[in-house]
Protein backbone atom coordinates (compact mmCIF):
# COMPACT_ATOMS: atom_id res chain seq x y z
CA UNK A 1 0.00 0.00 0.00
CA UNK A 2 1.40 3.36 -1.05
CA UNK A 3 1.75 5.96 1.70
CA UNK A 4 1.08 9.62 0.92
CA UNK A 5 2.20 12.58 3.00
CA UNK A 6 -0.27 15.39 2.51
CA UNK A 7 -0.22 18.91 3.91
CA UNK A 8 -3.32 21.07 3.59
CA UNK A 9 -2.51 24.74 4.15
CA UNK A 10 -5.55 26.95 4.69
CA UNK A 11 -8.84 25.54 5.93
CA UNK A 12 -11.25 28.28 4.96
CA UNK A 13 -13.62 28.41 2.00
CA UNK A 14 -11.62 26.15 -0.30
CA UNK A 15 -9.64 24.16 2.27
CA UNK A 16 -12.54 23.06 4.47
CA UNK A 17 -14.53 21.75 1.49
CA UNK A 18 -11.49 20.12 -0.12
CA UNK A 19 -10.46 18.38 3.08
CA UNK A 20 -13.72 16.52 3.62
CA UNK A 21 -13.93 15.37 -0.02
CA UNK A 22 -10.28 14.37 -0.22
CA UNK A 23 -10.41 12.48 3.07
CA UNK A 24 -13.46 10.54 1.96
CA UNK A 25 -11.57 9.38 -1.13
CA UNK A 26 -8.38 8.56 0.77
CA UNK A 27 -10.07 6.82 3.68
CA UNK A 28 -11.85 4.35 1.44
CA UNK A 29 -9.05 3.88 -1.09
CA UNK A 30 -7.63 0.36 -0.98
CA UNK A 31 -4.30 1.34 -2.51
CA UNK A 32 -3.44 4.43 -0.50
CA UNK A 33 -2.66 5.19 3.11
CA UNK A 34 -2.29 8.80 4.10
CA UNK A 35 -0.79 11.11 6.66
CA UNK A 36 -2.53 14.47 6.55
CA UNK A 37 -1.28 17.60 8.29
CA UNK A 38 -3.85 20.39 8.62
CA UNK A 39 -2.36 23.87 8.86
CA UNK A 40 -4.14 27.13 9.68
CA UNK A 41 -3.64 29.78 12.34
CA UNK A 42 -7.07 31.33 11.85
CA UNK A 43 -10.30 30.70 13.79
CA UNK A 44 -13.73 29.62 12.59
CA UNK A 45 -16.35 32.23 13.34
CA UNK A 46 -20.12 32.25 13.01
CA UNK A 47 -19.89 34.33 9.82
CA UNK A 48 -17.92 31.53 8.13
CA UNK A 49 -20.83 29.07 8.27
CA UNK A 50 -22.30 30.29 4.99
CA UNK A 51 -19.48 28.79 2.93
CA UNK A 52 -17.05 26.84 5.13
CA UNK A 53 -17.54 23.28 6.38
CA UNK A 54 -17.12 22.97 10.15
CA UNK A 55 -19.24 22.20 13.20
CA UNK A 56 -17.62 24.11 16.06
CA UNK A 57 -15.98 27.47 16.68
CA UNK A 58 -12.23 27.53 17.31
CA UNK A 59 -8.89 27.20 15.56
CA UNK A 60 -9.51 25.96 12.02
CA UNK A 61 -6.79 23.32 12.02
CA UNK A 62 -7.76 21.94 15.40
CA UNK A 63 -11.50 21.93 14.65
CA UNK A 64 -10.97 20.10 11.35
CA UNK A 65 -8.63 17.63 13.06
CA UNK A 66 -11.24 16.90 15.75
CA UNK A 67 -14.06 16.49 13.26
CA UNK A 68 -12.18 14.45 10.63
CA UNK A 69 -10.38 12.05 12.91
CA UNK A 70 -13.66 10.42 13.93
CA UNK A 71 -15.05 10.28 10.41
CA UNK A 72 -12.02 8.86 8.63
CA UNK A 73 -10.13 6.53 10.98
CA UNK A 74 -7.86 5.10 8.32
CA UNK A 75 -6.08 8.44 7.86
CA UNK A 76 -3.33 9.61 10.24
CA UNK A 77 -4.20 13.23 11.01
CA UNK A 78 -2.02 15.91 12.51
CA UNK A 79 -2.63 19.65 12.87
CA UNK A 80 -0.61 22.85 13.18
CA UNK A 81 -2.21 25.96 14.63
CA UNK A 82 -0.03 28.44 12.75
CA UNK A 83 0.29 30.61 9.69
CA UNK A 84 3.02 29.77 7.18
CA UNK A 85 6.02 32.07 7.05
CA UNK A 86 9.60 31.87 5.77
CA UNK A 87 10.83 30.64 9.14
CA UNK A 88 8.45 27.75 9.67
CA UNK A 89 7.72 26.53 6.15
CA UNK A 90 10.52 23.95 6.32
CA UNK A 91 9.04 22.51 9.52
CA UNK A 92 5.77 21.79 7.76
CA UNK A 93 6.75 20.69 4.26
CA UNK A 94 9.22 17.87 3.66
CA UNK A 95 10.39 15.98 0.61
CA UNK A 96 7.78 13.70 -1.00
CA UNK A 97 4.88 15.77 0.20
CA UNK A 98 1.69 16.67 -1.60
CA UNK A 99 0.84 20.26 -0.64
CA UNK A 100 -2.69 21.54 -1.03
CA UNK A 101 -2.42 25.31 -0.95
CA UNK A 102 -5.83 26.79 -0.10
CA UNK A 103 -4.78 30.15 1.30
CA UNK A 104 -6.31 33.58 0.73
CA UNK A 105 -3.17 35.56 -0.08
CA UNK A 106 -0.38 35.53 -2.67
CA UNK A 107 2.30 36.19 -0.06
CA UNK A 108 1.86 32.72 1.44
CA UNK A 109 1.66 31.15 -2.03
CA UNK A 110 4.97 32.82 -2.82
CA UNK A 111 6.64 31.52 0.36
CA UNK A 112 5.46 27.95 -0.21
CA UNK A 113 6.35 28.01 -3.92
CA UNK A 114 9.86 29.33 -3.36
CA UNK A 115 10.51 26.79 -0.62
CA UNK A 116 9.16 23.86 -2.62
CA UNK A 117 11.38 24.76 -5.57
CA UNK A 118 14.33 23.93 -3.35
CA UNK A 119 13.05 20.38 -2.77
CA UNK A 120 13.59 17.41 -5.07
CA UNK A 121 10.24 15.63 -4.91
CA UNK A 122 7.19 17.74 -4.29
CA UNK A 123 3.70 18.33 -5.59
CA UNK A 124 1.77 21.58 -5.04
CA UNK A 125 -1.89 21.86 -5.91
CA UNK A 126 -2.84 25.49 -5.33
CA UNK A 127 -6.32 26.95 -5.64
CA UNK A 128 -7.59 30.50 -5.52
CA UNK A 129 -10.67 32.36 -6.53
CA UNK A 130 -12.39 35.69 -6.88
CA UNK A 131 -16.17 36.03 -6.52
CA UNK A 132 -17.27 33.90 -9.48
CA UNK A 133 -14.06 32.61 -11.09
CA UNK A 134 -10.73 31.17 -10.11
CA UNK A 135 -7.88 28.89 -10.96
CA UNK A 136 -5.97 25.83 -9.81
CA UNK A 137 -2.22 25.51 -10.36
CA UNK A 138 -0.25 22.28 -10.36
CA UNK A 139 3.48 22.13 -9.66
CA UNK A 140 5.22 18.77 -9.90
CA UNK A 141 8.90 18.13 -9.27
CA UNK A 142 10.23 14.59 -9.36
CA UNK A 143 13.82 13.51 -8.79
CA UNK A 144 14.92 17.14 -8.90
CA UNK A 145 13.30 17.73 -12.29
CA UNK A 146 10.42 20.13 -12.71
CA UNK A 147 7.63 18.60 -14.75
CA UNK A 148 5.43 21.69 -14.70
CA UNK A 149 6.28 25.38 -14.24
CA UNK A 150 6.26 26.67 -10.67
CA UNK A 151 3.21 28.60 -9.55
CA UNK A 152 5.04 31.95 -9.76
CA UNK A 153 6.30 31.43 -13.31
CA UNK A 154 3.30 32.81 -15.20
CA UNK A 155 1.87 34.79 -12.33
CA UNK A 156 3.76 37.96 -11.47
CA UNK A 157 1.14 38.74 -8.84
CA UNK A 158 2.37 35.65 -6.92
CA UNK A 159 6.03 36.12 -7.81
CA UNK A 160 6.00 39.67 -6.48
CA UNK A 161 3.04 39.71 -4.10
CA UNK A 162 1.62 43.05 -3.05
CA UNK A 163 -0.64 41.63 -0.36
CA UNK A 164 0.18 40.50 3.18
CA UNK A 165 0.15 37.15 4.89
CA UNK A 166 -2.37 36.82 7.76
CA UNK A 167 0.51 37.12 10.23
CA UNK A 168 1.38 40.58 8.90
CA UNK A 169 -2.19 41.86 8.96
CA UNK A 170 -3.72 43.97 11.69
CA UNK A 171 -6.90 42.83 13.44
CA UNK A 172 -8.85 45.35 11.35
CA UNK A 173 -7.38 44.02 8.13
CA UNK A 174 -8.14 40.46 9.15
CA UNK A 175 -11.74 41.27 9.94
CA UNK A 176 -12.20 42.97 6.57
CA UNK A 177 -12.86 40.09 4.23
CA UNK A 178 -14.18 40.66 0.74
CA UNK A 179 -17.27 38.63 -0.12
CA UNK A 180 -16.92 35.16 -1.57
CA UNK A 181 -19.36 32.69 -3.03
CA UNK A 182 -19.64 29.16 -1.67
CA UNK A 183 -20.08 27.72 -5.17
CA UNK A 184 -16.81 29.32 -6.33
CA UNK A 185 -14.94 27.84 -3.35
CA UNK A 186 -16.60 24.54 -4.19
CA UNK A 187 -15.46 24.85 -7.83
CA UNK A 188 -11.86 25.45 -6.84
CA UNK A 189 -11.82 22.58 -4.33
CA UNK A 190 -13.41 20.21 -6.85
CA UNK A 191 -10.79 20.99 -9.50
CA UNK A 192 -8.07 20.52 -6.87
CA UNK A 193 -9.47 17.03 -6.30
CA UNK A 194 -9.37 16.41 -10.07
CA UNK A 195 -5.73 17.50 -10.04
CA UNK A 196 -4.93 15.14 -7.17
CA UNK A 197 -6.59 12.23 -8.94
CA UNK A 198 -4.74 12.84 -12.21
CA UNK A 199 -1.31 13.68 -10.82
CA UNK A 200 -1.14 11.39 -7.77
CA UNK A 201 -3.42 8.47 -8.55
CA UNK A 202 -3.14 8.28 -12.35
CA UNK A 203 0.38 9.74 -12.53
CA UNK A 204 -0.67 12.00 -15.41
CA UNK A 205 1.37 15.17 -15.41
CA UNK A 206 0.84 17.59 -18.27
CA UNK A 207 -1.66 20.22 -17.21
CA UNK A 208 -0.21 22.97 -15.08
CA UNK A 209 -3.21 25.22 -14.60
CA UNK A 210 -6.99 25.09 -14.82
CA UNK A 211 -9.16 28.19 -14.99
CA UNK A 212 -12.85 28.08 -14.22
CA UNK A 213 -15.73 30.50 -14.34
CA UNK A 214 -19.04 29.60 -12.75
CA UNK A 215 -20.96 32.35 -14.60
CA UNK A 216 -19.99 31.11 -18.07
CA UNK A 217 -19.97 27.57 -16.60
CA UNK A 218 -16.63 26.79 -18.24
CA UNK A 219 -13.25 25.43 -17.25
CA UNK A 220 -10.12 25.49 -19.37
CA UNK A 221 -6.88 23.63 -18.71
CA UNK A 222 -3.43 24.91 -19.71
CA UNK A 223 -0.20 23.10 -20.44
CA UNK A 224 2.62 25.60 -20.17
CA UNK A 225 6.32 25.58 -20.90
CA UNK A 226 8.77 25.38 -18.01
CA UNK A 227 10.66 28.66 -17.82
Amino acid at each position, binding site marked *: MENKNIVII*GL*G*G*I*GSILTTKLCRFLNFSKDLSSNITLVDGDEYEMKNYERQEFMNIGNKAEIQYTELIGKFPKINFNFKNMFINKNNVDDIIDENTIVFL*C*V*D*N*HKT*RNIVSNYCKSLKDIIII*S*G*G*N*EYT*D*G*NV*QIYVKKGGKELTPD*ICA*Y*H*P*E*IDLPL*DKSPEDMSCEELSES*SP*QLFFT*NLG*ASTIMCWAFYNVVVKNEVSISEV*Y*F*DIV*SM*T*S*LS*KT*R*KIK
Partner: protein
Amino acid sequence: MFTREELAGKTVKALKKMCVKKLGIPGMTKKNKGIIIQAILDKDGPAPVKTIKEEVKVVEEVVKVVEEVVKPISELNFFAKSQLTKPNARTGNKFTTTIYMACGATDGNFTVVGKTITESLESFGDILNADLKSTPLVNGDSVSRDYVLKEGDTVEFLKPAGSKG
Protein backbone atom coordinates in the same frame (compact mmCIF):
# COMPACT_ATOMS: atom_id res chain seq x y z
CA MET B 1 -38.93 54.83 -91.93
CA PHE B 2 -38.65 57.18 -89.05
CA THR B 3 -39.90 57.13 -85.53
CA ARG B 4 -41.43 60.16 -83.86
CA GLU B 5 -38.46 60.42 -81.57
CA GLU B 6 -35.98 60.41 -84.41
CA LEU B 7 -37.87 63.17 -86.17
CA ALA B 8 -38.20 65.21 -83.01
CA GLY B 9 -34.42 65.21 -82.75
CA LYS B 10 -34.06 67.00 -86.03
CA THR B 11 -34.32 70.74 -86.65
CA VAL B 12 -37.40 72.29 -88.29
CA LYS B 13 -35.24 73.32 -91.22
CA ALA B 14 -34.04 69.74 -91.70
CA LEU B 15 -37.59 68.44 -91.47
CA LYS B 16 -38.81 70.91 -94.09
CA LYS B 17 -35.96 69.92 -96.36
CA MET B 18 -36.94 66.25 -95.96
CA CYS B 19 -40.52 67.11 -96.87
CA VAL B 20 -39.52 68.92 -100.05
CA LYS B 21 -36.59 66.88 -101.34
CA LYS B 22 -37.07 63.33 -100.06
CA LEU B 23 -40.74 62.78 -99.40
CA GLY B 24 -42.45 65.30 -101.72
CA ILE B 25 -44.83 66.64 -99.09
CA PRO B 26 -46.07 70.09 -100.11
CA GLY B 27 -47.28 73.01 -97.97
CA MET B 28 -44.96 72.57 -95.00
CA THR B 29 -42.92 75.77 -95.25
CA LYS B 30 -45.01 77.66 -92.72
CA LYS B 31 -46.13 74.77 -90.49
CA ASN B 32 -44.82 74.17 -86.98
CA LYS B 33 -42.62 71.25 -86.04
CA GLY B 34 -45.38 69.04 -84.66
CA ILE B 35 -47.46 69.26 -87.80
CA ILE B 36 -44.44 68.63 -90.01
CA ILE B 37 -43.50 65.53 -87.99
CA GLN B 38 -47.04 64.20 -88.16
CA ALA B 39 -47.11 64.80 -91.93
CA ILE B 40 -43.87 62.93 -92.37
CA LEU B 41 -45.13 60.04 -90.26
CA ASP B 42 -48.40 59.99 -92.22
CA LYS B 43 -46.50 59.88 -95.45
CA ASP B 44 -43.67 57.61 -94.50
CA GLY B 45 -45.24 55.72 -91.55
CA PRO B 46 -43.62 54.86 -88.20
CA ALA B 47 -41.06 52.11 -87.92
CA PRO B 48 -42.95 48.83 -87.71
CA VAL B 49 -43.10 47.22 -84.27
CA LYS B 50 -41.20 43.93 -84.17
CA THR B 51 -43.08 40.85 -83.06
CA ILE B 52 -41.77 38.80 -80.10
CA LYS B 53 -40.60 36.13 -82.48
CA GLU B 54 -38.62 38.65 -84.43
CA GLU B 55 -37.10 40.06 -81.23
CA VAL B 56 -36.12 36.56 -80.07
CA LYS B 57 -34.55 35.89 -83.42
CA VAL B 58 -32.46 39.03 -83.14
CA VAL B 59 -31.33 38.10 -79.64
CA GLU B 60 -30.42 34.59 -80.76
CA GLU B 61 -28.35 35.98 -83.57
CA VAL B 62 -26.53 38.29 -81.14
CA VAL B 63 -25.86 35.43 -78.72
CA LYS B 64 -24.53 33.30 -81.57
CA VAL B 65 -22.14 36.02 -82.57
CA VAL B 66 -21.00 36.56 -78.96
CA GLU B 67 -20.44 32.82 -78.45
CA GLU B 68 -18.28 32.65 -81.54
CA VAL B 69 -16.18 35.56 -80.36
CA VAL B 70 -16.06 34.90 -76.59
CA LYS B 71 -15.31 31.24 -75.81
CA PRO B 72 -15.92 29.82 -72.30
CA ILE B 73 -12.88 29.58 -69.96
CA SER B 74 -11.56 26.03 -70.06
CA GLU B 75 -8.34 26.52 -68.10
CA LEU B 76 -6.37 29.07 -66.09
CA ASN B 77 -2.67 29.36 -66.01
CA PHE B 78 -1.28 31.70 -63.34
CA PHE B 79 0.87 31.77 -60.22
CA ALA B 80 -0.77 32.72 -56.91
CA LYS B 81 1.02 33.35 -53.64
CA SER B 82 -0.78 33.36 -50.28
CA GLN B 83 0.35 33.77 -46.68
CA LEU B 84 -2.66 31.82 -45.43
CA THR B 85 -1.32 28.39 -46.32
CA LYS B 86 0.46 27.28 -43.16
CA PRO B 87 -1.38 24.27 -41.76
CA ASN B 88 -2.71 24.85 -38.29
CA ALA B 89 -1.75 22.30 -35.66
CA ARG B 90 -5.25 22.32 -34.21
CA THR B 91 -7.09 21.88 -37.49
CA GLY B 92 -4.74 19.60 -39.41
CA ASN B 93 -4.42 20.59 -43.03
CA LYS B 94 -7.49 22.77 -43.09
CA PHE B 95 -6.76 26.35 -43.92
CA THR B 96 -8.19 28.83 -41.52
CA THR B 97 -8.10 32.56 -41.23
CA THR B 98 -8.89 32.62 -37.52
CA ILE B 99 -6.63 32.37 -34.51
CA TYR B 100 -7.30 30.64 -31.20
CA MET B 101 -7.19 33.10 -28.31
CA ALA B 102 -7.89 32.47 -24.64
CA CYS B 103 -7.93 34.31 -21.36
CA GLY B 104 -8.77 32.45 -18.18
CA ALA B 105 -11.64 30.07 -18.81
CA THR B 106 -12.78 31.96 -21.92
CA ASP B 107 -11.54 31.07 -25.39
CA GLY B 108 -12.50 31.13 -29.05
CA ASN B 109 -11.30 31.57 -32.62
CA PHE B 110 -11.05 35.12 -33.85
CA THR B 111 -10.26 36.89 -37.13
CA VAL B 112 -7.03 38.52 -36.03
CA VAL B 113 -4.52 37.28 -38.62
CA GLY B 114 -2.32 40.24 -39.48
CA LYS B 115 -3.31 42.21 -36.41
CA THR B 116 -0.96 43.12 -33.58
CA ILE B 117 -1.50 41.90 -30.04
CA THR B 118 -2.68 45.37 -29.05
CA GLU B 119 -5.17 45.53 -31.93
CA SER B 120 -6.45 42.04 -31.09
CA LEU B 121 -6.98 43.01 -27.47
CA GLU B 122 -8.77 46.19 -28.48
CA SER B 123 -11.07 44.21 -30.78
CA PHE B 124 -11.79 41.16 -28.68
CA GLY B 125 -10.58 41.94 -25.15
CA ASP B 126 -14.14 42.43 -23.93
CA ILE B 127 -15.27 39.07 -25.25
CA LEU B 128 -12.30 37.34 -23.62
CA ASN B 129 -12.63 39.30 -20.37
CA ALA B 130 -8.98 40.22 -20.91
CA ASP B 131 -7.53 43.36 -19.43
CA LEU B 132 -5.73 45.62 -21.92
CA LYS B 133 -2.61 45.18 -19.77
CA SER B 134 -2.80 41.35 -19.84
CA THR B 135 0.52 39.67 -20.56
CA PRO B 136 0.33 37.94 -23.96
CA LEU B 137 1.76 34.50 -24.75
CA VAL B 138 1.95 33.40 -28.37
CA ASN B 139 2.49 29.67 -28.82
CA GLY B 140 3.43 29.58 -25.13
CA ASP B 141 6.12 32.27 -25.32
CA SER B 142 6.05 35.86 -24.17
CA VAL B 143 5.84 38.37 -27.02
CA SER B 144 5.73 42.13 -27.34
CA ARG B 145 2.45 43.93 -27.94
CA ASP B 146 3.65 44.82 -31.44
CA TYR B 147 3.82 41.18 -32.47
CA VAL B 148 1.79 40.60 -35.64
CA LEU B 149 -0.32 37.45 -35.44
CA LYS B 150 0.02 34.96 -38.23
CA GLU B 151 -1.80 31.83 -39.32
CA GLY B 152 -1.30 28.95 -36.89
CA ASP B 153 -0.48 31.09 -33.85
CA THR B 154 -2.29 30.49 -30.59
CA VAL B 155 -2.62 33.33 -28.12
CA GLU B 156 -3.16 33.37 -24.40
CA PHE B 157 -3.65 36.48 -22.34
CA LEU B 158 -2.54 35.61 -18.83
CA LYS B 159 -5.25 36.00 -16.26
CA PRO B 160 -4.11 36.68 -12.70
CA ALA B 161 -4.54 33.88 -10.20
CA GLY B 162 -7.46 34.03 -7.81
CA SER B 163 -6.28 35.57 -4.58
CA LYS B 164 -8.91 34.34 -2.13
CA GLY B 165 -9.58 30.92 -0.75
